[in-house]
């Protein structure tokens, strides 16, 4: 048998095996019979054009200023909301466009090219919405997604705690049933949009028995910022993506009506994890956008700066760095495209999403570091655009699942598949 067919045969079980649960509420697109296609549709191209124009006119001119002040970019977020760049995948019955993950990725890459901090501010609301999109009932969707369409409000995803990030099952925030309500107590940390969100998706432990498995012990809730007992902490000063608002949030005897439970008691863990299939590809796309920016800036500079009588681009040491950046950008792009395409067409994409996110975050860091290197002394200085890229890139290896967690996911599946085939 030809070797390519053998490889396809061997790797296919990895993806097929994961079709245990179908949590997507939106209809999967039918798979075209025409095989691979690497061309965007006209609509996707128009979307990309719009995002590119928006980035050039609205984000790039102000990115440096928001990075310095750390202020939340409300004017940019409001404009993005007006132009329709946010909330793309809210279902049509709530007034949204019902776009796919692929479209969200196109937007993310373009916006992150301008500033990944502002992109995070614009995009993270969709991470908060995803559990409601995949697991919310029609009333919850109409109420909480609808209000994001009606007004420029944002949501947030509240799972991480001071004591538990990668170990989601180790979270301590608890919710106790009291009559028709749940009483929420605990603390979340590093919640992006924490200070500006209108509501949060919160994961809490509802079964106190330590022997209860993770798949039954947690529940997902929609918690409104305005409810008594919800206290966002101070805005954290981070290394990069400083325009993004990250905070700790304290919940003290917050009363949640039972209507705000997603699916039912004990269903939270799967919802929280299932959201990642849809949110990791856009984060990967964002990292790709950052890497693309690093490549463009480094290329431009290398054609202007002269050493030893020629533009530094003529020195292979520099040219090869640009080539390696390009290799990273192209492969990261293909990876997010595939991960996004898979989930939009109803295929379980968990492993591919991890591959894309892990790979993109690493090439983004390498590209940003190399861009600073190409700029030399100037690269270290705040008057030039690349030191910001290096500071912004780091978080991509940490949030939305650390690179180590991604490797755990990928290796687990490789090994499980291997033990299942002869």
């Amino acid at each position, binding site marked *: 048998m030809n070797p390519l067919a053998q490889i396809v045969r061997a790797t296919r079980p990895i993806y097929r095996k994961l079709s245990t649960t179908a949590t997507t509420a939106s209809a999967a697109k039918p798979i075209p019979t025409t095989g691979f296609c690497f061309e965007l549709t*006209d*609509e996707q191209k128009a979307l990309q054009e719009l995002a590119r*124009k928006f980035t050039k006119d609205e984000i790039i001119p102000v990115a440096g200023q928001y990075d310095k002040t750390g202020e939340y970019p409300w004017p940019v977020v409001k404009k993005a909301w007006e132009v*329709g760049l946010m909330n793309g995948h809210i279902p049509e019955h709530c007034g949204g466009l019902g776009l796919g993950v692929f479209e969200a990725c196109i937007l993310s890459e373009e916006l992150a090219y301008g500033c990944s901090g502002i992109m995070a501010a614009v995009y993270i609301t969709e991470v908060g919405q995803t559990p409601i999109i995949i697991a919310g009932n029609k009333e919850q969707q109409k109420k909480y997604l609808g209000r994001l369409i009606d007004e420029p409000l944002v949501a947030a995803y509240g799972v991480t705690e001071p004591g538990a990030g990668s170990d989601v099952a180790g979270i301590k925030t608890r919710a106790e049933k009291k009559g028709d309500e749940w009483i929420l107590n605990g603390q979340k940390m590093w919640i992006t949009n924490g200070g500006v969100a209108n509501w949060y998706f919160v994961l809490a432990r509802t079964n106190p028995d330590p022997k209860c498995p993770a798949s039954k012990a947690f529940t997902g809730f929609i918690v409104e910022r305005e409810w008594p007992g919800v206290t966002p902490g101070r805005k954290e000063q981070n290394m990069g993506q400083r325009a993004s608002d990250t905070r700790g949030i304290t919940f003290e005897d917050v009363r949640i009506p039972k209507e705000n439970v997603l699916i039912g008691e004990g269903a939270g863990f799967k919802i929280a994890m299932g959201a990642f299939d849809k949110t990791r590809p856009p984060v990967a796309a964002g990292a790709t956008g950052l890497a693309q920016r690093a490549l463009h800036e480094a290329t431009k500079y290398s054609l202007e700066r002269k050493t030893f009588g020629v533009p530094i681009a003529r020195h292979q040491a520099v040219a090869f760095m640009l080539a390696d950046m390009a290799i990273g950008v192209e492969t990261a792009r293909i990876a997010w495209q595939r991960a996004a395409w898979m989930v939009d067409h109803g295929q379980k994409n968990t492993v591919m999403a991890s591959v894309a996110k892990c790979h993109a975050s690493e090439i983004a860091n390498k590209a940003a570091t190399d861009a600073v290197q190409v700029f030399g002394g100037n690269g270290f200085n705040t008057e030039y655009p690349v030191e910001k890229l290096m500071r912004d890139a780091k978080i991509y290896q940490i949030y939305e699942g650390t690179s180590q967690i991604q490797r755990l996911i990928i290796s687990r599946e490789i090994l499980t598949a291997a033990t299942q085939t002869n």
Partner: protein
Amino acid sequence: MSRVLVGVKRVIDYAVKIRVKPDKSGVVTDGVKHSMNPFDEIAVEEAVRMKEKKLASEVIAVSCGPSQAQETLRTALAMGADRAIHVEVAGAEYDTLQPIHVAKILAKLSQDEKADLVIVGKQAIDDDSNQTAQMTAALLDWPQGTFASKIEKTDGALTITREIDGGLEVIKTKIPAVLSADLRLNEPRYATLPNIMKAKKKPLKKVSAKDLGVDLAPRIKVVSVEDPPVRQAGSIIPDVDTLVAKLKEGGHV
């Protein structure tokens, strides 16, 4: 005033570095980014604003060119035009398409569609002709308001502020009329994502120049296209007297 016809042209994007073809017959267009002529964007924006102010009921976008002209029409639809007409002109005929032909096409369409107003960009950034609006007005025997930087409608008449060399000129014309948009007329909006999605469903009609009875034979022949001369280096002069002497030498004073 009910129908506004807006002419839009697909041109090489303003940010692209233009390269002349080695055979000097024109510029390289293959694989080069194209977009709507910036002055035409301003024209579309003005037409859409008139519709929003209830001064117009329908905006029709028109473009003459090959199949890619439909992308430009979709942008116009996404900005708020109601329907589009694509006058298909391709290949060699497109290479020799000139303002006189476009003016005849727009004039015929204006009559067929019973337009009350024709708005186009003042000139295209590729040929800089600045002729289409004027010729269209002449063919229709309608008044023209070119280089418009402000358009106001008052009881069946238009008050147009024009940017001219000496400053601003305000004229009044009756309707129907032909206008051409200048830079400061307005700031074009973003085509929002929902509108981009909706644009796909708006009607786009295809016609040929022959259907409209327009003969596309060229009246002007392009002899050659060349790069502008490379800028000569300047020289640094020690004082004003030397400067004056040099200017006198060069015959500049």
